[in-house]
């Protein structure tokens, strides 16, 4: 178009494309692209959409299992079989940069985006979880971001009507200015309901559904694919996306109703890179072409250019390809739900994505090449120098703890360990009446009942299912050893599922890293992917999809590498659902696993919360994670749970044994402001030759605290040992104190006091 700027090297580089990439574009289309086409390539070839820097790496992930119905990368989200013709679809996605700029709307639209991915697959979204990272809470700007993000998630999820059932929140300096907001959603469907994002059937009409397109989030995908700078943030600020959960709820109900009619040939949400990405991806998947006319696209602001319409990321919009001749059925359903819609084009056999504006062609590109032939880079990786210093750290540098009493108090009060009730009490975690284990225990557990499946709500013989979900990543450990730390994140997630009575079946991950052009940061990424792959393989929990978010940097450098791992597991029977809290006075407290990881000269203190809180250092080699041991531990615990021996199970993670014991004593909140306490008397005096700080606060992997009734204790310990899992009874539940006896000293804490510190820490900081 005449008013479009001419293509100059500056313009190309402003679009985040290199000179080589530009040459490649010319080669593909056999001519110079125009301005609109340049914009299209720039978003489609951004890291966010094309994974150009990570595609090669991600190939290492295990992606197969007999349960996989739709695998990683095939569609918007993967799908796993859960038996009886039922399936689940789930995925995690980041909205880091938008949340840095506008925390409330950024987080809200992140939730909206991931929910859309799920119902686009034909599934009814039934629960959400999230993983959040912020800088230090003592900083008021951090508190502003934290408050905004949490209320944004609450706003969207609550209004939409999806329960937010689990999550994690970490606070660490490295995230200052670049918070991480990773949102996960899960939906349920029957095998025969799987919908495809393919433009099938030449001549079929293409419908646009949802609110009018505005200038919001212009080129958001590109924004997510560069370092977060004051400049890039400012640019984004001028086009903040605003979420409308109400609209999305209508959109979801209408889409599910529509899919049931069989009138839909293909369906795709408009997420990153909006109309551009959805049209060219559906055409690419369908092996067809698509032709649309922008003049027919509903527009919110007057005078929008084709470039703007195509790249807008206005929320809650869907692209639907309808079987020709059934348009009326489709329109009737949209109208029933008061949804704006427009017929904007049709499927062709040309293989081209043709975009017109009032009949005039403004872009004409080969869809499959655009979607699938983005460049692939093998970036240079170099082991970071900081690791030398990390490895040199020894415990000789610090004295053994002389005041474990206050150390435990400080750890429980540390925001990363403290209760996250300030967060999850703002989320409706019970809507849909399926939540069997609310936030606060190791993993969330929900049931799947008839109304969890589109169209099945009145089915009487519905085969109910139970699933568990957890999300984990100890980024400090990953920073100190990306490979071990990443393996351990998978192991921790699996452990959390096992503690709840579930067998892991699948994983989705969110790789949050720094700039991939920096060889040291790329090395972190590479090592991390290696660790995740081994972990997921060990647990037979293939990766069914995920998200990569690079360029997470602030002016002081990159964030700690954060490969967030979310896992889903199945619980076979209602009776197996287990929580982390001690249940009855007189019960036996048993430790599964070695008290301290073998051969670790730091006894699990490397990278521990204890070192950070008490000694102010983030140093040392983190504990290694032996996947064989983890796997045996998990199956053993599950076996014990299934034989009805276990009353509670809680794994050891941040803060070690002492924190795990304390948390097991806290019990579930019975009602508002009404905690229940159950103390324990623990004797660790048989464990000698180890520093008390390491025994109490070390973070060796592979350990779980369980409780059983007194008479089952011996049997439980023996069975565990028979399975090859070290086990020992270490105490008894009861009283209102946590008492711990070491070989040289004895400590006692009032549970009520510990609970206060732990429960109110974040709330007080936010008051």
């Amino acid at each position: 178009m005449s008013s479009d700027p001419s293509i100059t090297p500056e313009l190309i580089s402003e679009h985040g494309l290199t000179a080589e990439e530009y040459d490649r574009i010319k080669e593909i289309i056999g001519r110079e692209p125009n301005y609109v086409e340049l914009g299209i390539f720039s978003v489609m070839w951004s890291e966010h959409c094309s994974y150009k820097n990570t595609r090669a790496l991600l190939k290492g992930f295990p992606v197969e299992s007999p349960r996989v119905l739709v695998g990683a990368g095939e569609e918007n989200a993967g799908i796993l079989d859960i038996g009886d013709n039922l399936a689940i679809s789930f995925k995690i996605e980041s909205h880091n940069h938008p949340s840095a700029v506008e925390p409330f709307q950024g987080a809200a639209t992140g939730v909206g985006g991931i929910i859309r991915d799920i119902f686009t697959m034909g599934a009814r979204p039934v629960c959400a979880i999230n993983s959040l990272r912020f800088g230090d809470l003592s900083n008021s700007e951090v508190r502003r971001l934290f408050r905004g993000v949490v209320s944004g998630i609450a706003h969207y999820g609550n209004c939409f009507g999806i329960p937010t059932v689990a999550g994690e929140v970490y606070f660490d300096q490295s995230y200052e200015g670049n918070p991480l907001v990773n949102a996960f959603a899960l939906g349920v469907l029957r095998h025969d309901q799987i919908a495809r994002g393919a433009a099938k059937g030449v001549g079929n009409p293409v419908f646009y559904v949802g609110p009018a397109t505005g200038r919001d989030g212009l080129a958001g995908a590109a924004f997510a694919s560069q370092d977060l700078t004051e400049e890039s943030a400012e640019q984004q600020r001028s086009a903040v996306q605003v979420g409308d959960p109400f609209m999305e709820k209508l959109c979801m109900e209408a889409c599910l109703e529509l899919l049931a009619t069989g009138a839909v040939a293909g369906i795709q949400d408009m997420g990153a890179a909006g109309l551009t990405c959805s049209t060219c991806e559906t055409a690419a998947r369908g092996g067809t072409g698509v032709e649309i006319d922008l003049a027919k696209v509903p527009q919110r602001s007057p005078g929008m250019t084709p470039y703007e319409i195509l790249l807008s990321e206005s929320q809650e919009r869907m692209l639907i390809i309808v079987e020709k001749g059934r348009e009326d059925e489709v329109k009737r359903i949209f109208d029933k739900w008061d949804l704006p819609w427009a017929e904007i084009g049709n499927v062709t056999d040309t293989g081209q994505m043709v975009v017109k504006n009032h009949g005039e062609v403004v872009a004409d590109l080969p869809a499959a090449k655009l979607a699938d032939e983005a460049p692939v880079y093998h970036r240079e990786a170099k082991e970071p120098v900081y690791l030398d210093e990390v490895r040199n750290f020894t415990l000789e540098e610090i004295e053994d703890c002389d005041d474990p009493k206050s150390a435990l108090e400080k750890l429980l009060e540390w925001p990363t360990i403290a209760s996250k009730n300030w967060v999850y009490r703002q989320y409706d975690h019970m809507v849909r009446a399926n939540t069997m284990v609310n936030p606060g225990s190791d993993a969330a557990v929900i049931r799947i009942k008839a109304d969890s499946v589109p169209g099945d709500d009145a089915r009487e013989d519905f085969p109910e299912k139970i699933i568990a979900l957890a999300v984990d990543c100890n980024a400090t450990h990953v920073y100190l050893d990306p490979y071990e730390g990443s393996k351990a994140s998978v192991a921790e997630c699996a452990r959390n599922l096992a503690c709840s009575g579930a067998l892991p079946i699948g994983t989705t991950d969110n790789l949050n890293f720094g700039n991939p052009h920096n060889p040291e940061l790329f090395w972190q990424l590479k090592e991390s992917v290696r660790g995740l792959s081994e972990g997921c393989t060990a647990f037979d929990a293939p990766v069914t999809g995920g998200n990569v978010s690079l360029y997470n940097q602030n002016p002081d450098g990159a964030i700690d590498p954060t490969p967030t791992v979310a896992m889903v597991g199945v619980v076979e029977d209602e009776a197996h659902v287990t929580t982390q809290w001690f249940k009855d006075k007189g019960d036996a407290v048993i430790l599964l696993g070695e008290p301290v990881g073998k051969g670790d000269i730091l006894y699990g203190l490397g990278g521990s919360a204890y070192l950070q809180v008490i000694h102010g250092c983030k140093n040392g080699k983190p504990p290694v994670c032996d996947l064989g041991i983890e796997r045996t531990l998990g199956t053993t615990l599950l076996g014990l749970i299934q034989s009805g021996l276990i009353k509670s199970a809680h794994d050891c993670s941040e803060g070690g044994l002492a924190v795990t014991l304390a948390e097991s004593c806290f019990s579930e909140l019975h009602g508002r402001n009404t905690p229940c306490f159950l103390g324990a008397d623990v004797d660790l005096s048989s464990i000698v030759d180890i520093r008390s700080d390491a025994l109490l606060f070390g973070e060796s992997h592979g350990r779980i605290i369980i409780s059983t009734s007194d008479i089952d204790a011996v049997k439980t310990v023996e069975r565990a040992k028979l399975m090859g899992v070290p086990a020992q009874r270490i105490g008894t539940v009861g009283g209102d104190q946590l008492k711990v006896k070491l070989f040289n000293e004895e400590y006692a804490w009032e549970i009520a006091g510990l609970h206060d510190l732990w429960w109110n820490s974040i709330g007080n900081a936010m008051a």
Partner: protein
Amino acid sequence: MNFAVLQFPGSNCDQDCVHVLRNVMGYPTQLLWHKENNVGDADAVVVPGGFSYGDYLRTGSIARFSPVMGAVKEFADNGGFVLGICNGFQILCEAGLLPGALIRNRSLQFRCEHVYLKVATYNSPFTSQIPEGKLMRIPIAHGEGNYFCDANTLDEIEANDRILFQYADREGDITDHANPNGSLKNIAGICNAERNIAGMMPHPERAAESALNEKDGRLVFESLIQSLNPASTTA
């Protein structure tokens, strides 16, 4: 005995109510679309929770103009039983079927947690089957559950024994500490003067099954069923 559960754009506890009435309590239950203008053969109507019309402008302010609300009013005028839960309570207040209004929680935050409810009167079709002295444990999930009405209305409600539930602590005491949203007199639920329309912020439908470790909420539905058909025996 038939139940109807209203469905507005943005309702999101509608299916939960249907599930409990149909599958847990065992009664035929239908969703009733907001554009309908009669309640069909329903013997009782539940106005469910959620965010009708996104809660935009004010909670319940748009939903109450739906055609179906005209039908509900007529149904109630003829003595039909109507129970509004959470957003349903807000809609009934907006529609003038119940007095007062529900404003922003004083914390300004959405609150989802279990609360204890003291039953303020057993003299209603919604509470009659609750054992005397029982402290109910039921979850809330709302951002605007702070009940407000003017002083005269409050006097009238109290004088006529129309408060159904009040937020209490574990001892059953009505304290400020136990109040999750700032509502007047810790009010969690009320009924109209004729006692056939009730509204409550807590969600009994989320606390009606042992699978969710909850059963206190069942008592509200059992009361309703018993009142509709005194001959019915509920387990």
